[in-house]
């Protein structure tokens, strides 16, 4: 957990599961909103833009802005429209693009 995170879970749960993001394990509340949970865990940037490689993270949190995209099982998904489930393997969407531009 990153204690510097300004995001706090207002309804904490004891029902926790493990997911990975870019190969790192995170313990998150089962069934919680994935974008919110990753923000609380201290993550800020979820993806790189596919053309310029600029970093992006959640913005609208309601399925409209497509900025919180992550890759799960090879598909781009909106993290704010996804629930935390046990064993999710999450990758930064278009991560290759970002690294190329580093």
């Amino acid at each position, binding site marked *: 957990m990153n204690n510097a995170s300004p995001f706090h879970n207002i309804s904490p749960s004891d029902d926790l599961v493990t997911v990975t993001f870019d190969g790192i394990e995170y313990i998150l509340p089962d069934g919680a909103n994935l974008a919110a949970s990753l923000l609380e865990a201290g993550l800020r940037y979820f993806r790189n*833009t*596919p*053309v310029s490689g600029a970093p992006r993270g959640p913005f609208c949190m309601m399925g409209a802005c*497509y900025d919180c*995209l992550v890759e799960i099982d090879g*598909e*781009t998904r909106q993290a704010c429209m996804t629930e935390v489930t046990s064993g999710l393997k999450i990758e930064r969407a278009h991560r290759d*693009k970002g690294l190329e531009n580093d």
Partner: protein
Amino acid sequence: MEADYAIIGGSIVGLSIAWGLLKRGRRVLVLDGDDGSFRASRGNFGLVWVQGKGLKQPAYARWTQKSAAAWADFSAELGESTGYNLALQQAGGYDFYFDEESLEQRVAEFETLKKELGGDYPFEVLRHNELKREEPNIGPRVAGAILHHQDGHLNPLRLLKSLADDVRRMGGTVKCGVPVKRISKRDLFEIEAEDGTIYAAPKFVLSAGLGAMDLGPQLGFSAPIRPQRGQVLITEKLPKMMNRPSGIIRQVDEGSVQIGDSKEEVGLDDRVTLETASAIAARAVAVYPDLAKAKLVRSWGALRIMSPDGFPIYQESSTTPGAFLVTCHSGITLAAAHARYLPAWLDGSDQAPNLEVFSEQRFAIS
């Protein structure tokens, strides 16, 4: 408000003409419709396309080629004066085929046209393996493609915005939200908007897209046009996965893949349907299988403006001279010609292109 020309329709067609007239020193007033209007300029596919046009009318193929050839310079000039990058790319475009037979048939038609055009029709046939070298993401079901080197694409919304900006910058007036109800001729053409305002000008261009179906007959035009619906799908933004556009699928400069080219005769109905959306999505996936995992973020329907033979109509009214009808399906492709060459025709200059074959006379029953 003093204007030499009133232009009904602030579309890409109308604004291209206004832009060209301003360059000739004319004063223009452009009246655009409202959100209730059917606006092909906001719903189109953004192709600057030569391939397959005018197979039975070489004059249309030549007019299209003349415009395509004028595009690079036109785009550069618009970009320089407005700061918009139109993302024009004219590095060729594909027509994909799933079976050899229809490919061969098309090639034969192209060869005929090529002869009629004196050889100026640079296309080549790419079989699957050759195509795969150009487009590594192509799917196994694609038998081949015709690559036409005069084809290309651009960002059509930036084109619309830059044209409107530049027309205003040069002193033209563009009024939005002004649907026109009636047009009559006294000393001047009097154009009555739906809110009752009257605009007047000595010359007048009707470039109102499907709006010409109602307005055209008021000035003696037959305006035999009809809507043809096309549905479009937009994917999430993706890393570059294709190098050239085609008539059914292209990747825009911002990363999204645009999928389209359905043709439905459904009247003034621009809704989307699941059936057609699925069909064009399936075809796109057959060409580029990686798209099966892509997320769609938007879809819409838009109405093409089709004449009976699919070619443009350029007609001065015989009953009220000074009134011109300009309508076409390919407003993006022809924008450069409309900006550079059509204004001389409207002005009655001896530099005017010969557009006789595009008059309404061709539809007259003799």
